[in-house]
Each structure stands twice: as C-alpha cells, then as structure tokens.
C-alpha cells in the first residue's frame, strides 16, 4: 500500500521490557519489532500476560520508571520515544500519540466533569483558554456521537454508562488530533451490543482522521472487524504477523492455528472446542527454546532447545517457528514444493 521510502509512523525495534523486583525478573516483552504505517490499523492479538499491554505502555512511557527496564528503539513519527524528557514527553503524550484504556469505569477522574477533563487536555496541548477547550470538548463529544452532548459535558463519569464513558475516553484521546492512537482492549469491558457500536465508531474515526492505530485485543472477531494487519503475541514475543486476511484465514504458527480453532464459529453445537493444552509459560523463567514449544503439537527436541528465528514468509509476513518454510522470492507461501 505505502511506498517504502516513507518513514513509518511507528517503528519498534528489539523492544525488551523487564520488570525487576527483589524476588524475580519478569521478562514481559522480548525482542518485539513492529511497524505501523500512517493511517494503518495494526491489531496485536494475544492472551492475558502475553505482553501486549506492556508494549503499548512502553510506547507511551507509562511504565513505572523505577521498576521497568526498557531497551530497544521506539520511534513514533521519527521521534525517539525513549529519549523524550519532561515537557517533550508531555507534549508527545496526548499530542502525537494518545491512548484509550480497557476500563472506562476507572480510567476517568471521578471528581472532575467529563468536559473539564477533555478541556484541560486541549488547553495543555494547544495553549488555548479553558473556555475554548470546553467548546472543543463539546465538538468532540458530538464527534463520538454522545447523545445530548451539551448536557454530558457537565456530567461526572459516574453519571454515564460504560459505553458513554468509553466514548468520552475516545473523545479525550482524539482531542488533540493525534497521529497515533493506542487502544488497549477498549471494547473488552463493554456489553456486546455497545462493543460493536464503539468498534465501528473507532474504525470510522480512524479512517476519517487518517490516524495510525495500534489496537490490542484478545478477541479475534474484533481483530477481523478493525485491523489492516495483525501481530500475534505469545509470552512476550511476536510469533506471527501479516495482513488480517492472511493471518486469520491461513495461519502459519501453531499457536495462531490453535487459537483460531479454539474459537466458536458456525454451527458447533455438540462439538467440543479444540482448546490449546497447557498454559502460557512463567515469564520469570522462560524456556530456552520456543516459548510455545511445551504446548505445541508439532514440537520436537530442536524446538525445545533453540529459539526459532523469525521466518520471512513474504512481504511483511513473518512467523517465528522452525516448522514453517521461508518463502522463496515468489511471495506465495504454501504452494511452493520443498
């Protein structure tokens, strides 16, 4: 889609995040590299503890600095995120990149009105007066389709429903026209009907405003709905990437395959769901080999001893597994005989 010469919106190279405490070191994110182009939606899929939220927070520098050790290169729109300090960091957060959180119940300050919370953000980033900020807040609430926005401007978070609160959160995130929107499971805490409304709204706004977006979820249906590209994370590593079509219809990594076959689809009444046996590894003591190895049906001794490399399967299509074959120059993986 995009030309190679353009610098990507987000470029993450070899991101490692460790949480160091007296008892143990937790390797939450290991050698994660990913790229997001301008106007593109990347979905990070993974179960709880796979490091997807931690990667997001690293990108926003929201991890506690005393306990989290971050290494690697993080660049958003050419800016080195890890080098930002004080005022620059504050301008970056909410200005260049904004974030939406999972729990709309607790993510807003309970003692300030929704309008106030949006207005102070606008004032912070544009230097306008508080009244101008409130006017912009009203605009934003209308943009995210909050009914009777004028009245909701003076509402406190506890006076709004979960769906409205999440819309207010989105309005807050969009308030300063960020180039990058990070969404950390923004629909997980919502009712199914509200979930789809919010999802459609986010997709629409993303396209209208031309933002890049990283959308974290554990829900494959949500990913299919919103993503351009998908990255699957397992135990702090990206195990497979590709376009949403490729990954969801033709998964290469055994974990992705297992995840897809463990979802309910079509008429499955009376059939057992194929669950992946076992549970994710302890991040305090990762196995030396493939971290999915112990649960993998195809694993052999080699898989358990050595960390599989990232295998290029085509343009922007990767899988971290010994059992997949690198694509030859012709990008059509799978049909080429060995």
């Amino acid at each position: 889609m995009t030309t190679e010469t353009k610098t990507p919106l987000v470029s993450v190279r070899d991101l490692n995040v460790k949480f160091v405490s007296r008892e143990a070191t937790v390797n939450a994110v290991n050698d994660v590299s990913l790229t997001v182009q301008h106007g593109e939606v990347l979905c990070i899929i993974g179960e709880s503890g796979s490091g997807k939220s931690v990667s997001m927070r690293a990108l926003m520098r929201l991890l506690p600095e005393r306990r989290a050790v971050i290494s690697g290169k993080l660049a958003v729109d050419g800016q080195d995120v890890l080098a930002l300090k004080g005022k620059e960091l504050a301008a970056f957060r909410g200005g260049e990149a904004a974030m939406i959180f999972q729990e709309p119940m607790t993510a807003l300050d309970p003692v300030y009105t929704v309008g106030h919370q949006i207005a102070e953000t606008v004032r912070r980033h544009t230097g306008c007066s508080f009244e101008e900020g409130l006017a912009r807040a009203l605009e934003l609430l209308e943009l995210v389709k909050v009914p009777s926005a004028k009245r909701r401007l003076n509402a406190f978070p506890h006076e709004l429903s979960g769906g409205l609160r999440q819309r207010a959160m989105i309005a807050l995130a969009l308030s300063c026209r960020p180039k990058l929107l990070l969404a950390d499971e923004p629909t997980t805490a919502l009712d199914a009907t509200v979930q789809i409304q919010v999802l459609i709204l986010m997709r629409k706004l993303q396209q209208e405003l031309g933002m890049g977006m990283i959308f974290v979820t554990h829900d494959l249906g949500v990913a299919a709905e919103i993503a351009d590209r998908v990255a699957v994370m397992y135990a702090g590593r990206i195990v497979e990437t590709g376009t949403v079509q490729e990954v969801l219809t033709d998964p290469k990594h055994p974990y992705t395959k297992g995840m897809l076959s463990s979802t309910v689809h079509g008429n499955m009444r009376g059939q057992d769901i194929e669950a992946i046996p076992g549970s994710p590894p302890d991040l305090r003591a990762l196995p030396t080999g493939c971290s999915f190895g112990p649960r993998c049906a195809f694993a052999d001794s080699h898989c358990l001893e050595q960390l599989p490399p990232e295998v290029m399967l085509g343009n922007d299509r990767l899988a971290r597994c010994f059992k997949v074959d690198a694509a030859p120059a012709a990008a059509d993986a799978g049909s080429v005989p060995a």
Partner: protein
Amino acid sequence: MVKKAYGFDKPIAVQYGIWLGKVLTGDFGMSIATGRPVTEELFRALANTVMLSAGAVIAAFSLAFVIGTFAGYRVGTPSDRAVTGIAVIGVSIPNYWLAIVLVIIFAVELNVLPATGMGPRGSETFNPFQWDHFKYLILPIITLSLIPIGIITRTTRSAVAEVLNQDFVETLRAKGLMEAEILLHVVKNALPQVLAVMGLQFGYLMGGSILVETIFTWPGTGFLLNKAILTRDLPVLQGTILILAIIFVTTNLVIDLLQTAVDPRLKR
C-alpha cells in the same frame, strides 16, 4: 437560703427545664465561683482558645498535608519512612509531657520563649500580631499541633498513595499533563478522606485542651473547665460543655457538606 437562691429545692427535672429554658434565651446563669455571668466567662475563654487552636490548625494541617502528600508519592522510600516515623512520634508522645520538655528547653535553659501565661501584661491586652505577645503562643501551638500532625499525616499519606494506584492517574499521564497538574487531581481525590479526619481534629482543638492550657496557664476553655471542675462550678461546667458540643457537631456538619462539594459521587 442558698438552696432557694440556686433553685436546688425543686425536682431535678424541673431544674433542668429551667436551665434549658434560660439557655435558649442565651442566659447560662451565674458562675458560682466568681458571680459573673457564665456567658461572659465562657466567651472570653472561647476566644482565647480559638486564638490558640487557630494557630495549631493552620500549622498542623498545612504541614501534615504537605508532608503526608510527599510521603504518599514515595511510598517505601527512605523519605516516606522518615515521614511515617514523625507521624508515629506525633501520635505517641503525650502532649503534656512534650509541653513540660519544651518549657524546660526553651524557657528555662535557653530562655528565649516565655514559659506560661498570655502576653506580658495579661490576657486583657493580648495582641497576637505583636511579636512580644506572639511569643506566648509559640510553645502551646507546637504542643497542640503534635497529635493532629501525626494523625493527618498518616491519613494524607495513605489517601494519596491509594489515589496514585488508581487507573485514572495513568490516563492523566497518557493525556500529557505535567506532574504538577496531576498532583492537583490526586489531591482533590484524596481530599474527602483527609477532610473527615481534619474535621475531627478541628473539633478536638476548638474544645481546648485541659492539660495543655493548664500547663501554660492559658485562660481558654480547657483552663476554665479545669477550674470549674475543681471549684464544682456547675453552671460554668454545663455551659462550657454545651457550647463545646455544639461546636463539635457543627464542625462535622460543615465537613460533611465540604466533602460533598469536593466529591460529586457523595451527592444524592
């Protein structure tokens, strides 16, 4: 004769009814010891106590709030432990003992501050805005501040630490606020809890302290109560206790209203 003059010949219930009726019209009766109206004695003492407690309230509340917030931001660090240590000392040292120690150090040994009394020429001419008068306030204020500093520091510390653990603080960071602006949010969220404790302490301080006022011979309500107890001056005792109770209840009402003003979730 005396029995009749004070109405002691009537049944207790009737005596109480008479007293209550007079109180409602602002007449608290006469002091048995001095023969002067209780209201006169009481309000003079109250004014003196308020002067003292206002100083202690300002000193203790502001200091405790600042160091409590500071410690709440750094839970587990050495500075937090130092503040917590101060707080523990504050609530565990008996203030009458501290009063005596302070007098020994600053009045007897160093001879820089007066040991007792209210002003160089007595309470009638006392003017807290003159340094040689103000000196008389310093030691009692320090003594009275001790307990509220300990209690409010601990409450503020835990309230601030609790608020900092809430998710919305991450949102505040993510939207690019500077730490000072985030502090405002945190403080406003911690305030209702702190206000509740401040209200109680305010009530206690306004009641005056029998021990501290007696040690410093400060002619406030505590001093008055002490004197009234020793001389069995019932009208003074009754009047003083009633007024102190009213102040205490009113303070708590005001605090409850303040809390709803700060935290909209309490309104309903």
